[in-house]
């Protein structure tokens, strides 16, 4: 399966940028979670290193097998994924009020993170087999394929992760030639649905987060607290930052879950605008390089797959970084490649395995 010459077509630059971001993230996790009064490294830091290692193995696995083999079996993968999500719904582990995890020995598996790959595969396959621009029926079927895992994840509840599925559908449909008119209608529907969602579907804490975002000072010590602290954290970093492990906001826990959702704030505080520029540059490079892979892909299937994976990734990166500067409502969305989290790390690296896969097989038949 793995031909030796494929080795030369691996996008080493992309891989290097990804690894650089992983290293940057791990360093920040080390900074925020190790206790200076205790010797040794923090448990979270070591766990993250294991997750990166496992993720790299998964990446290799995803590269080795031709992506068309995955898309051919995408319906099975998709169904297995739904099974996992259902399993979580009934038997999953509850943490922080949400049932999201399947406890494994080493870490807790979060199937919703892998749902992105499943959805990207199945949508790539579905739209890739269609000839010409997708009609309304195609869009409806594609939408339904996205909506099923979406709803299952929303139920956990984990609105943040669920929302990351939507860009996959939108991006793939868009690339497949969805008419702009339909896109416009979808946007209109979303706008019209918003008040109803506000009234019926959203939980109180979600409403509060949004209203607080619009005016953080109205609840400076409650829901607006994190947002204000995020801005203080980032703003106090200045040009060169306070230095590694010298941050006060993250180190002294003024910012909650600094190693997770707010890892980028910590980077901004400790490494300043300089560090932020490097990280943003790396992310932009990864995204543009991946877009390049989509452009170079041998077939539409490959392009769709790469773009599906990328859409979810980009959405999450942009949203998280915006949030970590206190410029978006606080939502439990991790920053792919940098935030602490085993499932997210493994799923992201696996997804980039597919990206590398598509690119290196651009000349094969």
């Amino acid at each position, binding site marked *: 399966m793995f031909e030796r010459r494929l080795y030369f077509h691996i996008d080493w630059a992309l891989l290097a940028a990804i690894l650089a971001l992983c290293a940057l993230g791990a360093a920040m996790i080390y900074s925020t979670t190790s206790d200076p009064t205790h010797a040794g490294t923090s448990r979270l830091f070591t766990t993250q290193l294991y997750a990166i290692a496992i993720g790299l193995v998964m990446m290799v696995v995803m590269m080795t097998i031709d992506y068309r083999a995955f898309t051919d079996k995408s319906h099975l993968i998709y169904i297995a994924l739904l099974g996992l999500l259902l399993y979580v719904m009934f038997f999953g582990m509850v943490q922080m009020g949400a049932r999201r995890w399947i406890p494994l020995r080493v870490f807790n598996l979060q199937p919703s993170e892998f749902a992105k790959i499943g959805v990207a595969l199945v949508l790539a396959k579905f739209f890739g087999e269609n000839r010409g621009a997708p009609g309304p029926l195609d869009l409806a079927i594609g939408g339904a394929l996205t909506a099923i895992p979406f709803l299952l994840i929303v139920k956990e509840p984990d609105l943040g992760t669920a929302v990351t599925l939507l860009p996959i559908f939108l991006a793939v449909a868009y*690339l497949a030639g969805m008419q702009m008119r339909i896109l416009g209608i979808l946007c209109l529907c979303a706008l019209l649905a918003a008040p109803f969602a506000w009234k019926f579907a959203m939980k109180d804490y979600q409403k509060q987060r949004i209203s607080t975002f619009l005016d953080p000072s109205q609840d400076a010590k409650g829901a607006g607290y994190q947002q204000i602290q995020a801005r203080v954290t980032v703003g106090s970093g200045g040009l060169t930052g306070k230095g590694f492990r010298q941050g006060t906001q993250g180190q002294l*826990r003024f910012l909650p879950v600094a190693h997770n959702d707010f890892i980028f704030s910590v980077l901004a505080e400790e490494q300043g*605008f300089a560090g932020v520029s490097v990280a943003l540059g790396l992310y932009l490079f990864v995204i543009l390089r991946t877009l390049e892979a989509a452009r170079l892909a041998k077939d539409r299937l490959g392009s769709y797959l790469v773009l599906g994976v990328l859409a979810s990734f980009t959405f999450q990166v942009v949203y998280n970084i915006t949030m970590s500067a206190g410029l978006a409502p606080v939502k439990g969305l991790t920053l792919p490649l940098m935030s602490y989290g085993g499932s997210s790390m493994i799923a992201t690296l696996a997804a980039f395995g597919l990206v590398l896969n598509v690119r290196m097989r651009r000349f094969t038949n």
Partner: protein
Amino acid sequence: MKARLSIIRYVVVALFSLLTASFWALQMLQHAKYQELADSNHQRTLPLRAPRGLVFDRDGRAIVVNRGSSSVSILREHTKDLNQTIRLLASVLSLDEAEVRAVVDRHRREPAYRPITILQDASLPQLSAVMAHRLELPDVVVEQVPTRRYLDTAAAHVFGYVGEVSDKDVAEDESLHSGDIVGQSGIEKIYNGLLMGVDGARRVVVNSVGREMRTLEEEPPTPGKRLQLTIDADLQKALQDAFAASGFNGASVILEPRSGEVLAFTSVPAYDPNDFAAGIDRATWSSLNTDQLKPLQNRTIQGRYSPGSTFKMAVAAAALEEGVITPDFKVSCPGHAVYYGRSFQCSLPNGRGHGVMDLRHAIEKSCNVYFYAVGNMVGIDKIHKWASLLGLGEKTGIDLPNELQGLVPSPEWKRAATRTHEKWYAGETISVSIGQGAVSLTPISQAVYISTLANGGTRVTPHLLKSIDDGGGWTPAKVPAPKSQVTLKQETIEAIRDGMWLVVNGTGTGGRARMAGYDVSGKTGTAQVISNEGLRAARGRTDRDLRDNGWFVFFAPRENPRIAGAVFVEHGGHGGVTAAPIARHVLETFFAKREGRPLPPKPVIQGAPGAPGT
């Protein structure tokens, strides 16, 4: 498809440009603002309370020290919900929530970095309760506060007491901050500027739940200056023991007659200054204030009492110095005398007379008739002049707050004091001659008066401060200058001293103060608190104690006196019976200590409370 990929690329690049611009704005343009916010987030300034200066007696024994205590305060700097904190803290400390809220409201306008003290001198269970709830109370701090401890509680009126500074004082004095503990009375107040130290501060890094992570800088507090008082703790104790044994209330001050150093000073009943040290509770405060016996009143400098016969030496001094009489001037006492159509009684019961008296024996026997005659010859103006020169009816200027002025009447005083500008009647002079009538004097002025007679005419300023240690060793305090100085004629001094010596060592009224070999010289006084007619009318119809007040003023030895003083016994009846024994115990202690003998045991004095006055 290629076109759409390009559009996506542009959108991504645009988004990232926007992000970069946002971070530029936050991190570069608004950096200063957020830097400041981050600093105030994690840094706290905690005051380090300066201990007040220690106070020592004249032998260098500590009499006022400090003890450690913990107070619980709210630091509002980062309080998320002050109401919640108040509610929780009140329940944790078992305090009334409304009271806690009232305390917080009182300090609400102060800068948020100054802790608001909710509970002073917290008990161990209260402290552990606060510790146990630390995570829920991140804005509550426990401060170590040095608190006053008075080892000798009965000298309360010398020490005064401390308390939280009033808003008015904070407004007037820039060096004071709300919440400071300052002297409210006594030397604590007069010497507050010396005793009060300068608080230090500690800048610490705290985490988001208020736990201290490390200290950034520490400015240690400067303790207050140490003071040495002129008080002799042994003598002070002797005086208090003697008063306690007598069972009476009253006041007394013992002086070194040439310098005016106060050796002992008491006012009975007293309060316990320790009750104030860590904030007095409302019940104790109101009971002190409503107590009929007025324990907060410093009788020694604020009580004004008729001096009775102790005033006679002032009349004698006036007559001798003005050349109206010589010590050999004689008057025959038939037991009473008639002046201006009114009969005045002598001191002996049943109208008996003393016979022919000269000045020395008139003082010894406290013969009223003799002094009626002398007073009448001298006149009120001269009596007033010489009483004032000896220190009577004047403020002594002792280094204690709120001293009151006594009164030796004069025609001018009467004109000014009465609404109809009444003129002086010569008959009033007769009453004044034996220390009755309008004469009213503070015990401290009586002590100065007797010191002036003892030292030959120098009206010393009594004072409590002996030396100051401002950290670089003891420096003697400046001795306050005498209030006035006259050189009494040797004849005057000799005659008065002889008379006073006879009071104690002859057949006079002060025999209970006699100490063989020490030539104690003194004068008793027994002053009515109500006229004889009034007494008859009021008998059985009032709860007021109508017994006479007793006095004993003294110095010793007769030549080169080392000690002088006044003892005032409230409703003690005859001064010779109740006041003289108190003086004697003090004198015994004084001379025993001077000569290195063991101090006398606590006295048991007859004349228990409730004994009828004479």
